[in-house]
């Protein structure tokens, strides 16, 4: 991580009563970067955003913007504008008044406000709606007014608190790209809180995954997706199949011992800090390949499990199978359907198999969908 970023958090912690909401948050964000704070509800991501905005004070640590300590500055002295999940438009003001209010507070002249508001409206495609009250606007229009209100004051940092979660699914997809394009065009630094993995992946330069008030991992979308640092991150990024295995380090390889449902296998260690002993293996349903038992010999490096199809469904594009491996159940996708009861082999390529030492698996159990009674290796 680069030193001396534009927005820096050092050792930030926050408590709510006796509950530790955030702990040891160290984050450095460069100018013009789009960072997504990703996490499930209650992980502290909104608290972190409100702390950045200045609505709550951290119980420890400091927040710096361009080398200026803003930790205890009031919200309006930080050069940050927040877009609320509820939009928080003022119902008694028109769209134009909403957008122009920040400028009015700054003492900008009336004609100047009118020009800037008009410019903001055409930027956001709100022309002709200036006289409407928020109650007469659609969800997407309200969202754009809220965005316009935040951008009108020309903030250095734009804070977005799940701004797309109240939009319907189809509009959300286009707004994602609009918002990202706008951010790039304005060169503004943006911090976007979301619980939607795909939204974070599509929009952000960097994803910061929070778990129980701590940063679980940060990196580019590609990094966190393909090289999750912990079982939690792997599970959060969709690798919800979990199997407990045993293995040994052997040079550049990690050799997985033969188990109840799998043959002996070996995968390249790469940079993973794995130690010999029980490991938790995770993979995504879509990376698994379903084969008939006879085809096993044909596949390359990776691991192969043997099991029986318990159920099959068609969510679209592929068939999703529930495969029973001993006492564990996993999901695996296939281009063709296997009948329930069929004996199958599930092959997971080495690069799609995430291995973690079993001690690091506590938080993962909250998101994994494995059935109770799984085998502990």
């Amino acid at each position, binding site marked *: 991580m680069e030193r001396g970023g534009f927005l820096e958090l050092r050792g930030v912690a926050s408590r709510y009563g006796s509950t530790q909401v955030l702990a040891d948050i160290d984050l450095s964000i460069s100018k013009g970067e789009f960072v997504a704070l990703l996490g499930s509800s209650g992980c502290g991501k909104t608290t972190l955003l409100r702390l950045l905005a200045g609505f709550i004070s951290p119980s420890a640590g400091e927040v710096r913007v361009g080398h200026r300590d803003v930790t205890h500055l009031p919200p309006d002295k930080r050069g940050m504008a*927040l877009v609320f999940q509820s939009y928080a438009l003022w119902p008694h003001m028109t769209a134009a008044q909403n957008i122009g209010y920040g400028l009015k*507070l700054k003492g900008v002249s009336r004609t100047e406000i009118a020009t800037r508001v008009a410019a903001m409206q055409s930027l956001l495609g709100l022309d002709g709606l200036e006289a409407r009250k928020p109650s007469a606007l659609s969800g997407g229009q309200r969202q754009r007014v809220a965005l316009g209100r935040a951008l009108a004051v020309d903030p250095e940092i734009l804070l977005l608190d799940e701004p797309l979660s109240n939009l319907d699914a189809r509009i959300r997809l286009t707004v994602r790209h609009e918002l990202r394009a706008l951010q790039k065009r304005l060169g503004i630094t943006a911090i976007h809180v979301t619980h939607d993995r795909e939204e974070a992946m599509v929009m952000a330069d960097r994803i910061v995954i929070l778990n129980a008030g701590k940063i679980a991992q940060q990196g580019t979308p590609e990094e966190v997706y393909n090289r999750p640092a912990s079982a939690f991150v792997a599970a959060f990024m969709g690798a919800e199949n979990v199997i407990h295995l045993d293995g040994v380090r052997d040079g550049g390889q990690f050799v997985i011992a033969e188990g109840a449902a799998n043959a002996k296998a070996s995968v390249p260690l790469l940079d993973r800090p794995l130690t010999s002993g029980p490991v938790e293996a995770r993979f995504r349903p879509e990376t698994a390949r379903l084969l008939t038992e006879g085809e096993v010999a044909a596949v390359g490096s990776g691991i192969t499990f043997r099991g029986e199809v318990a159920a099959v469904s068609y969510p679209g594009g592929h068939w999703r199978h529930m495969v029973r491996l001993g006492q564990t159940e996993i999901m695996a996708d296939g281009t063709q359907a296997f009948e329930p009861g069929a004996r199958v082999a599930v092959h997971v390529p080495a690069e799609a198999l995430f291995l973690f030492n079993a001690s690091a698996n506590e938080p993962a159990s909250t998101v994994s969908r494995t059935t109770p009674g799984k085998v502990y290796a």
Partner: protein
Amino acid sequence: MPRRLLGLLLVLPALAVIVLLFILPLVMSAVGAFEVEGAFGWGNFAKTFDLYTKDIVFSVVIIALSTGLIGIASIAIGGYLTLGEHPVAVAILRFLYRWPMFIPFIVVGQILRTFLAKNGMMNNTFISFGLLTPIEAQSFLDWRGIVIAFVWKQTPFVALLVAGAMASVNRDTIEAARNLGASRLRVLIEILVPQVAMTLTVGLILSFVTMMSVLSVPLMINAQSPTMLTADIAFRVNSYGDYGVANALGLVSLVLASSVAWIYLRASLKERA
């Protein structure tokens, strides 16, 4: 249709109470206002405006002034309860501000009589602190006393409504304004009050109508002329048995109260449109 009859039967007691105890007396006193020695005419009104024009104006001015002050005080209280950042001060205010609501007007009158008199508690305190010499002390038992009594008694009621409405305003709208740089005073005036304007209006109108009908306060605090219409009505009835002029005065009060209600109805219609 027996079902319909049954429904009517169920409503009847309530309807009877309203008709017999409210509508009938209202109609009778309205009719009585136009009755002069057995014949109908404008005599009572001529007498009313002859004798009491000053009192009508006095009542309107006093109550309008009180309503304005109540509005300002309740916005201040509600605003502090919503935006105040000192939790202890907010808790103390929340505990204290409601008490006057539970004290009857006549007790308020009595309390303020002993407090505001020339040698009352207020002046005595000022004198003992050396802020006032005994010669400078003056009685507040006149129009100022009435205003103080009304504001003291009615502010908690309006503040209760306003604070409740302010508490239910989306906090994000307050934080959005703070985020853009609005001071707390500006948030109160430009964000919070407009969003509770309707509740504030309702509270103030109810207060206005209540104050129109208070007899004890003007009788106890302002035993001089000009005085409030209620005192005049009591005087006409008790001293002269003159129900005609009393009814006419009552009708004038009703018109004043209804005009305020009309403002409210118009505003609420406009809001819905």
